[in-house]
């Protein structure tokens, strides 16, 4: 099993999803940030979409070729990704419910 690939794929996904979640929360509650991410592509959702997938691919390549994770057990990265997915989902859901209630 390619431990390096498991590590770089998992960590890239964890970082991308975490930053996506942070962008989502910031955009809802910090107006200048909303203006900033909208200005990049013309629409906040397009910016977030492109940023997430491009960041994932770049990080994957950088981590893989940096030879990190050769001695990390592959399931550790996957556990981290499972937790990140659940936490991101919860934060996204709560953010929009709270933001709607605040209006």
């Amino acid at each position, binding site marked *: 099993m390619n431990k390096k690939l*498991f590590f770089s794929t998992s960590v890239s*996904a964890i970082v991308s999803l975490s930053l996506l979640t942070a962008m989502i929360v910031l955009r809802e509650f910090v107006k200048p940030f909303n203006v900033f991410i909208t200005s990049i592509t013309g629409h906040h959702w397009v910016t977030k979409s492109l940023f997430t997938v491009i960041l994932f691919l770049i990080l994957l390549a950088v981590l893989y070729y940096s030879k990190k994770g050769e001695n990390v057990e592959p*399931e550790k990265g996957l556990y981290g990704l499972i937790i990140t997915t659940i936490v991101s989902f919860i934060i996204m859901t709560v953010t929009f419910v709270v933001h709607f209630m605040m209006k």
Partner: protein
Amino acid sequence: MNTTKIMLLLHAMLGDFGGVCFIWVFIEIINKTSAGLKRAKVVSIVGTTLAFLAWLSGGYYYLTYYGSTVKPVIKASELKWAHGIVMEIKEHVFLIIPILALVITILMQSINRWDDMNKNVEKSLSVLSIFAFLLSFLMAGMGALIAISARSAIGGGL
């Protein structure tokens, strides 16, 4: 049927079939037959491709029609939560799916035999596949709710 409606239909179909691909991957991981590994690799690639195509078609509909035509109708009605909560969650939670799909696909391609995976990796990949499937069908349910809300807002029935 105009392009916008075709894109919406495609978005739903592609997303649903993509979700089915990941439950298929999950079943192959559980069964661990020799032919099943090859199927899991192919189906994960198909599922990821469908997820990206659902992203593009949904994005087209969202940017060219939903924002200008459907959203104002829902927000002006008693069902404003259908946009303010359901659609906002849907359009953002959706972004998790292509990343999960890519992870599952990349890692499945790297496996030469089922024995390459230890039990913990097997369980983790199974869980991630289930997540991709569940999130895809959550998107379908949320999409249906938004569509029903929009129709109700303009006086249409179910």
